[in-house]
């Protein structure tokens, strides 16, 4: 799912990123904060899937179009929403730092993700763990940072962040971190073996690029 287009010096990427986790942990809020810099108490429950697009001017030469797939949190939607995982190159798994059960479920979401989607070379897609709603936390779960680091190593998360969509804490940082990892993969990948699928996708994008040939 990566489309890279050379335009003179500029490189343009399209990344599909999943945002998953238990119901009501604030997935939609995190996305709204990141994309629109807003927060509201009044988001409606997501049924199925919602979308957001964020255009990131990464550096002078790189433009990233980030497709965020905000997937309904109820576990029972199961396989039905898993088709949405296809071709994702990165993911956030979100839990509510004030609700232990949502952290408990993280493992389940991670396994599910790894089973359903991998990078073209077979590795797992880079995934960042977000402990959201820390503005409502008084000490507690995330206080033991070493323990969280170990947990992430063990479960294969590239990083974890304490976030608050409400207070705008660490959302941009987490996104930057994930994009960086995706770019690393993308660069190493394009160096090593050309991706036939990506090339094919480029063909579809003819009208827009029109330079590589």
């Amino acid at each position, binding site marked *: 799912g990566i489309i890279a287009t050379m335009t003179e010096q500029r490189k343009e990427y399209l990344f599909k990123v999943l945002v998953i986790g238990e119901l009501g942990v604030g997935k939609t809020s995190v996305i709204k904060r990141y994309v629109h810099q807003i927060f509201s108490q009044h988001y*409606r429950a997501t049924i199925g899937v919602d979308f957001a697009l964020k255009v990131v001017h990464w550096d002078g030469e790189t433009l990233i179009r980030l497709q965020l797939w905000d997937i309904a949190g109820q576990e029972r939607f199961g396989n039905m929403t898993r088709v949405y995982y296809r071709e994702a190159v990165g993911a956030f798994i979100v839990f509510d730092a004030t609700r232990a059960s949502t952290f408990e479920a993280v493992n389940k979401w991670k396994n599910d993700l790894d089973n359903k989607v991998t990078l073209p070379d077979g590795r797992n897609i880079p995934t960042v763990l977000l402990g959201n709603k820390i503005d409502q936390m008084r000490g507690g779960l995330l206080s033991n940072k070493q323990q969280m680091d170990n947990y992430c190593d063990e479960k294969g998360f590239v990083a974890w962040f304490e976030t608050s969509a409400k207070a705008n804490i660490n959302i941009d940082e987490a996104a930057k971190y994930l994009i960086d990892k995706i770019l690393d993969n993308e660069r190493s990948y394009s160096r090593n073996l050309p991706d036939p699928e990506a090339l094919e996708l480029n063909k579809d994008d003819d009208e827009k690029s029109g330079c590589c040939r």
Partner: protein
Amino acid sequence: MTFLSTMEASGNDDPPVGNSSYLSDSDVERDDDIPTLDVSADEIQLSPDSWQSVDLGLKEINHIRSCTSTPTSIKYNSTCQPLNGVSHVPNLTLQTNLPIQNGDALKLDINEQDTIDERNGSINPNSPEFLDITLQTTEVDEPAPVVNKPGSSLHSKKGSITSLLGWISSPLTSSPQKQIPQVVKTNKETSSTHTAPKSPISFRKKRFWRSKEPQPMSTTALILEDRPSNLPKKSAEESEKHRLQYKKMVEIAKKNELKDVQKRNKLMKEQRKQEDTITSASSQWISQILPNWEVMHQNNKVRMLWWQGLPPNVRGKVWQLSIGNELNITEDLYSIMVVRFQEKIRSMHETQSSCSEDTISLSADRESTVELIRLDISRTFPHLCIFQKGGPYHDVLHDILGAYACYRPDVGYVQGMSFVAAMLLLNMEPAYAFITFSNLLNKPCQLAFFRLNEELMKIYFASFEVFFEENLPRLFARFKHNNLTPDIYLIDWIFTMFSKALSLDMACRVWDMFCRDGEEFLFKTAIAILHLHEKSLLAMEFIQAAQFLTRLPTDSFTHHELFSHICDVTMVSRSNRRWKDVLSLLGQSDVTI
């Protein structure tokens, strides 16, 4: 109630007819604590032809919030600002284009409802106040020409107003020091410029509506006056010039007013028409259709009426009857299930507190249903602010969803249910909402989706695609090319039956038709929505289209546009098959449709 003016057309010996009994003392007698607005005849000026303006000469109205009308009364709600922070009943100016029919009574009724400040329960002096004003007039039998000379009082208007009175119909008990609105004389102020209409008075409704030229209101803002006496007089030439200039100004002002009046007339006419339609439809539903439901509901005329949208006061009942109660659920069963659910919550809390240190061990399964319902309720129609914590419908929505999870543990709670239950709750009593909810979820389409039966859902999506392609081949091809599959946008639409995607009003009308035509209508609506936006969707990339469809801009089309597009959707496939056939064929095997 003081009643200052009772007049009868001079020279008319016939006793007043029609609603003149309105004016008997006993009728206008009000409780002593009801403040009184006295309006004497010469304080109010009514232009005689198809009366237009009651100018109480008062200045504080900001804007007219709304107006409702029936043939015999008018009401204006006005937002008024308190003066100098002092809560008082502001002055107001009323205008109406309603015709007065012979014998009609119009009520001028000042009804003040203070906005209560929620935080401290006190009257908020800075909040807008709402006033209803009703003007009551009664006429004598024959419309008669009226001479409306400058300075003339109502007494001189033959056959126009026999009485005029106003009162504050809701006691101002909350703040007794409030001033009663004072009606200020305006007649004298405007008299010098008021142009006397030449046409005879006409209160006949028909004639009023036929009249192509609505009458402008008086041009009170423009007054041509001589120079003060201490200044030299104008020359004849100058005087004439000023007179002509003045005339021109008045004409322009009149023209503009005419336009305004025409616009208002049109609006009011539409509103009246709509109100009339609703009123007559509602009486038909109540008196003829609902009592004979079994015989009537398939009737063609009834189906036509149904298509117009159900009047809000019968909507719940019609939904209930059409969805039915195949499951034979009783109100008692609902109560039992609510109790069971509440016990479940209690026992859960007990378990939780007994091992409070170790909440992590509380299995997600245990918690799920109760917790999911709790989380979703506050995220159901959040803009309405009635299902949220502390809102009036919070607990009852909670009860219905919980009761259902107890009643059907095999289905439990599934996201989307909260919207469906809320829609029902907005239209019927809790127990009936539960009964209807359970039966609705037992319909084939809802059962497939809410039981998350993927195979069946895929069949529904595939059937939808058959008709999507049939109706909108270009858009269908575009979606295919972009890999924009129906599961991406249909899940939300079908699970919530459009209650999340469309405005509440529009969703209700879609539900009306779902009740008449069944599941097919939901898919028809989906195709109509795609059709409405076909042009923009054709130009969109995957992500824009997906974003657009999962967050439809609700103000982008009107009821009329949506429903005329729904009308245009063909629900017959290329191979001449209907929805049900396509669905069952796709369900059977890999037959090509």
